[in-house]
């Protein structure tokens, strides 16, 4: 049954690299959405017996990560009428290479982590780390405020994969709480985006340095 879990995880890692290399904003949003959907189906594949609670969580997660958030971001993209391209600080290829290196390192590193219980898949932890790293890379190397939001989204995806490991230990309630936070957070940010464009007539977060004391 390992392949059943490993396949989506490999897909997630490939999406990570794709997102680091993609230059169109819309592709970035959709890849993040696809990644979210794939991840929200993960518990269904992982659990031995599927209860009503797990299905509810999966449905809610798909709805939020796959539909609501991408829609909000897409709307924000149209509303603020920014150039539809990602503005990188470091080029696409170098970040992609960094992402690949990071993925390789996380696979190497995961073997040495002192885990209490061996997971059902060896790829869970590397996928988690590489996704978090991707999120961070997007956050630190892209300038537009919208890519920042997507960076956080992907960072949360990485944390979610880690949470899947602890499925039995951490109640889904906590997961749902995090999801709600994320949703509200992005909701707020998409409002803020509008205000940033109004105040700075650009979404470039570099301009925010003007707010420094």
């Amino acid at each position: 049954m390992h392949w059943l879990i490993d396949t989506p995880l490999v897909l997630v890692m490939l999406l990570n690299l794709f997102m680091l290399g993609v230059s169109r904003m819309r592709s970035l949003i959709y890849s993040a959405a696809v990644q979210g959907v794939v991840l929200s189906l993960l518990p269904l594949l992982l659990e031995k017996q599927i209860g009503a609670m797990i299905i509810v969580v999966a449905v809610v997660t798909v709805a939020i990560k796959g539909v609501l958030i991408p829609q909000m971001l897409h709307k924000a993209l149209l509303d603020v009428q920014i150039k539809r391209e990602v503005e990188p600080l470091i080029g696409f290829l170098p970040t992609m290479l960094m992402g690949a290196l990071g993925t390789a390192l996380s696979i190497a590193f995961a073997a040495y982590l002192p885990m209490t219980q061996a997971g059902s898949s060896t790829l869970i932890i590397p996928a988690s780390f590489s996704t978090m790293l991707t999120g961070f890379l997007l956050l630190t190397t892209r300038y537009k405020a919208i890519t920042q939001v997507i960076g956080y989204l992907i960072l949360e995806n990485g944390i979610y994969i880690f949470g899947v490991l602890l499925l039995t230990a951490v109640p889904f309630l906590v997961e749902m709480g995090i999801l709600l936070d994320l949703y509200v957070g992005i909701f707020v940010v998409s409002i803020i985006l509008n205000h940033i464009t109004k105040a700075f007539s650009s979404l470039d977060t570099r301009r925010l340095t003007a707010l420094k004391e």
Partner: protein
Amino acid sequence: MEMSLTLAACVLILVSGVPGLFSRRRSAWGQMTATVLVLAGSLIGLTGSFAVLVTRHVFLASLPGIWPGAPFQLKMDSLSAFFSVLIFLMAAVGSIYGHGYWRQREHSTTGQKLRLHYGVMLAAMVVVTLADDALAFLLAWEVMALTSFFLIATEDGQPECRQAAWVYFVATHLSTLALFAMFALMHEASGKFLLSAIPVTTGAGLKMAIFLLALLGFGLKAGMMPLHFWLPSAHANAPSHISALLSGVLLKVGIYGLLRVLTLMPDPPAAWGVLILTLGAISAVLGVAFALGQHDIKRLLAFHSVENVGIILMGLGVAMIGIAVHHPVWVILGIAGCLLHVWNHGLFKSLLFLSAGSIVRSTGTRNIDSLGGLARRMPWTAGLFMLGAIAICGLPPLNGFISELLVYLGLLRPAAGHGSGSWVAVASGAVVLAMVGALAVACFVKVLGGVFLGSGRSTAATEASEAPLSMRGAMAVLAGLCVAIGVAPVVVLVPLESAATVWMGNEAAGSQLAVLFPWTMLTAISMGLAVTILIAVTVWQIIVRADASPRRATWACGYTKSNARMQYTASSFVQILLELLRWVLRPITHGAGPKQLFAESVDRHTDVPDFITDRMASKYWQIFKQRLIPLRRIQQGSVQEYLLYMLLAVFIMLALLIPFGQISAHLLGR
């Protein structure tokens, strides 16, 4: 039952401000529902709290599910009830007063948020008194701190108000930080996050650390010198019923925390008592001294809060010394004085703040020197303010006298034959207390004379009008309670005994309170005095009415064309005292005196700046800021850069997990 009543009351008060959020800006029903909910909650809460005080039952409750993975333990005993009575009472009074003082129609932009935070803060304060584990305590404490910050910042359009709120914010965070550390150390000592007794075997160093952190954390909230720095400007800039709440109740929650933590400490050394007593004496003397120099009536009252917290701490100090040297009599008198003064100060200081609010509302100024002659325009406010002033000065037959008398007796006990050797020195505290009383009288003569007597120094003062009925009613309730406790001190014996017993943890010692203090005799004397005063006032009224001689302005001194500027001012009245206290107050004089005879215009005024915020903080803050300039390089305001720092931190922490030794052995071995 009593616990459920109290919790139900909490919920009612907590949500009191919520319905108003959905009402229209200018409609009054939001305020009406808030007041009704607060009143209902207060009545239920008072019933529950008084029942606990009378029956002395202890109630435990744990609320599961509020916080995942941690219990939310509550415990209600007489000590909690003693403080929650004050909170519930002030909730009701403040709410009624707010009806006239902060009308939704007149304050349509701030009214809703004010009432929301008002309810939440009161409920949080009650939960603080009920909390029995560190998490519940800190949670309620933080909610209380945050909502009170928003209440102070109600008029956030004014820079002064924002400044005051920020200073308070810093102070309250410092306080919470100290409490976090304190609870961590208590966990270290007892192994539990419950507020349970600390084992006798705990090391002296650890106990000392817990005590000092408690003194810092709770002292900041209580406004003990030199941690009072947030207090004057916060009290001055908040709306008056909020100032009353801050001064009357919030400071007392700090005292409650200190009292509660001290009950958990085994064998407190005498040094703790001496420290508390000394800090109390310093707060009392400096508080009243700084109050003398203030021109802003609410700032002046705020410094009097520092003074009264000092008196409360002096009582506590005597009690702590008594515990250390095994003199139960000192303990009883000290703690009874401390507790009763908590109630009394809550009553009369709130009364004073509310009357000050009534003055501010009708004249628009807090400056004593631009008021005057208000007794004629606002007789109710004047009378009630005078009552509060007599009470705060500790004069019979009002309530301040009773609690101060208890503290006096506690302080004098060590000198009264039972004392052993060096503890006679404690009695010098009585001298300090006497001095504080005298200075307080001088200070309130200044306020009463400057604000209510003479003739108005500004058009605002000459055209002032009396406060509406709701405000007068609220003040009258407080005044009535001040008189009741003063004239018939027996009424507080039961609650006082009950709370003091819990604090001492000794049933037999607590019951001695009835014997040690001349309750019935004092009641008789006070009643006699009250009747005499009533008769004297009536007679004087009759004489004044019958007097047909013409009325002249005060200080007219026979001049035909006297004006308000010829009056003796409040500042000049205390000038001589300020000179005597110059060494500590260090007043600053602005402007020069007249240079020649018949000078056209002279501008001269004195200020007494606070020694923490205005002298030390502003000076050292500059130095601190200079030192930190090199760090600016890493604070560039770029989000990406900040995230990079976080990433680096994560990497470093992950790298610590990698078993490098194992890896190298693995590689080399192969």
